[in-house]
C-alpha cells in the first residue's frame, strides 16, 4: 500500500532531477569552488587547490568588492524599492481615478518597456542616456545643460533605466491588488470625511500590505540579479563606478579567469538570494492558513 503511494510521486522525478542537477549542484559547486584557486586556464584550471578562506579574505581586503556590494545596495534600493515600487503604486492609484482611454494607453507604454527583450531595452536605454541621446536633446530643448550620463553619472543612468524597465511588474501587482479592495470600504471612509491621503494611508495601503510585501521581495530578487542592462550600458565602468555584484562576479571569473574568486563573489550573491527567498516563502506561507 505504501509502495503505491510512493509510486504515485514518480512523475515528479524528472523535475526533481532537473532541479538537482542544474540548480542545486551548481550552487553547491559554487560554495566549494570559492574555497579553491580554480582558474579558467593554466595549471590551476586542471588541478585546483584548496585555499581555505583566501578568496573571502581577499574579497574584503580588495577595494572592488566592498564598492560593488555598496553599489548593489544603492542600485536595488533606488531602482527597485523606491523607483519601481513607488512609481508602480503611483501609476496604479492614478489609474483608478483616470479615464479608461488614458490608463490603457499609459499601461501599454509601461508594459512595452517590460516585455521587450532585455538586450533591446538595454540598447534603447544606452541610446537614450548617450551624450547625443534623447535625454540630452530634451534637456537642451528646455534650455538645460546636457551631460555625459553614462560617464559622469553611470549609476544614476542604470537606476533610471532599471526603473523604466521594471515598473510594469509592480504596476500590474498593484492594479490587481487595488481591484480587490472592496469599493464600499473606501466609500464609507469618504462618507466619514476622510481625505484622499488619509484614505490612502489608513485604508488602502493597510489593505494591500501583503501585496506590497510580496512585490518588494520579488523585485528585490529580480534587481539583485540584473546583469545585461548594466553590462550593455556601462560594462561596470568607468573605473568600477557601476560594477554591481553580478558584474564583478562575471568580470573576475570570465575576464580575469579567476573562477575561484568569481565564485566567492557569486556565493555572496547566492546567500543574499537565499535570505530574501526565505523571507519571501515565509511571507506567502503566513498569508495562507
Amino acid at each position, binding site marked *: 500500500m505504501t509502495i503505491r503511494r510512493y509510486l504515485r510521486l514518480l512523475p515528479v522525478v524528472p523535475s526533481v532531477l532537473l532541479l538537482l542537477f542544474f540548480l542545486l549542484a551548481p550552487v553547491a559547486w559554487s560554495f566549494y569552488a570559492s574555497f579553491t584557486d580554480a582558474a579558467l586556464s593554466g595549471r590551476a584550471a586542471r588541478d585546483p587547490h584548496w585555499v581555505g578562506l583566501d578568496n573571502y579574505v581577499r574579497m574584503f581586503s580588495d577595494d572592488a568588492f566592498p564598492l560593488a556590494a555598496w553599489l548593489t545596495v544603492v542600485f536595488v534600493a533606488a531602482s527597485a524599492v523606491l523607483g519601481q515600487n513607488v512609481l508602480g503604486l503611483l501609476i496604479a492609484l492614478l*489609474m483608478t481615478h483616470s479615464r479608461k482611454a488614458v490608463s490603457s494607453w499609459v499601461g501599454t507604454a509601461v508594459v512595452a518597456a517590460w516585455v521587450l527583450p532585455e538586450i533591446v531595452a538595454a540598447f534603447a536605454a544606452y541610446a537614450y542616456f548617450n551624450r547625443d541621446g534623447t535625454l540630452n536633446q530634451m534637456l537642451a530643448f528646455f534650455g538645460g545643460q546636457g551631460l555625459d550620463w553614462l560617464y559622469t553619472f553611470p549609476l544614476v543612468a542604470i537606476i533610471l533605466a532599471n526603473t523604466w524597465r521594471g515598473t510594469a511588474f509592480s504596476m500590474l501587482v498593484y492594479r490587481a491588488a487595488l481591484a480587490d479592495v472592496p469599493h464600499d470600504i473606501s466609500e464609507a471612509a469618504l462618507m466619514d470625511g476622510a481625505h484622499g491621503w488619509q484614505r490612502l494611508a489608513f485604508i488602502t495601503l493597510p489593505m494591500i500590505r501583503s501585496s506590497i510585501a510580496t512585490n518588494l521581495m520579488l523585485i528585490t530578487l529580480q534587481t539583485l540579479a540584473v546583469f545585461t542592462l548594466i553590462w550593455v550600458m556601462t560594462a561596470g565602468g568607468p573605473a568600477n563606478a557601476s560594477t554591481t555584484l553580478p558584474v564583478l562576479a562575471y568580470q573576475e571569473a570570465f575576464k580575469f579567469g579567476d573562477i575561484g574568486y568569481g565564485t566567492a563573489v557569486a556565493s555572496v550573491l547566492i546567500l543574499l538570494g537565499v535570505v530574501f527567498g526565505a523571507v519571501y516563502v515565509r511571507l506567502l506561507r503566513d498569508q495562507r492558513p
Partner: protein
Amino acid sequence: MTSRLRLAADIALAVIGFCFVAPLLWLLLAAVDPQAGYQTALPSAPSMENFGAVFTPELLFQPLANSFLLSAGTAAVNLVAAVLAAYPLSRYQSRFNKPFMYSVLFGTSLPVTAIMVPVYGLFVQLQLLDSMVATIFFMATTTLPMAIWMMKNFMDSVPLELEEAAWMDGASSMAALRAVVLPLMRHGLGVVFIFVFIQAWGNFFVPFILLLSTAKQPAAVSIFSFFGQHGAIAYGQLAAFSILYSVPVLLLYVLVSRSVGSSFALSGSVKG
C-alpha cells in the same frame, strides 16, 4: 469623483506615459533612418534600407531560427516536466506536497546570474559547452519552478470528479491525465508555454555564456555584431534588427494578455 481630480490624474498619467515611451522613440526612428546616430530625429529620407541590410540568412534568419529552437525547446521541456510534476501534487494528498512546493517556490528566488559561473564550470567538466540541448535543459530548469506553480494552479481548477469517472472505467492515472485533464486545461498549457517561451527568447546571459560558436547563437547574442564589434556601430541596422527580434514576443504577449488578462505573469508568483 470630481472631474478636476480626474483631469489631474489624466495629466499626471500622460506625463509618466510619455517618459516611458521616450526611450523607445529612438529605436523606432533610427530603424527607418539610413543615416541614424544616437540622436532622436525624424529621418530626412526615411527608407527600409536598414531592414533590407539585415535581411540576410546569416544576419537575421540563422539567429532567429536559433532563438526559436532554444525557446521552443525550453518551453517544451518545461511543459512536460511541469505537467508531470503538477499532477501528483494537484491530485494526491501527501506529506511531501507542501515541503516540495515551498522548496520549488524558494527555487524561483535564486538569482540566476549568480549561478552562471558555477554552471559554466559544470558545463566545462561535463564537456557540454556549446551544446544546444544542454543549454535548453538548463534554461528550462531556471524557469521550471515558476512553471510548476502555474501548472499546479491551472490543474487545481480542473474538477477531480471528471477523472474519477475515467478511473471507474479502468483508465490509469496517466491515461486520465492525457485524455481528461490536459484537454480541459489546454488554455493553461498555452499560457505556461508562451510565458516560458517569452522568457527564453529574451534571455541574453545564459546563451552568451554557454554557447560559443556563432552558428548556434540566438538573436539575443548575435545582436552584438551590430554593436561596435567591427569598430563603427551600425545604429540604423541595430535598431531595425532589434525591432524584428522583438516583434514575435510582443505579439505572443498580446495574445496571452488578451486571453488571460495582463496579470497572467503574476498568477504563478504573487497569487501563489
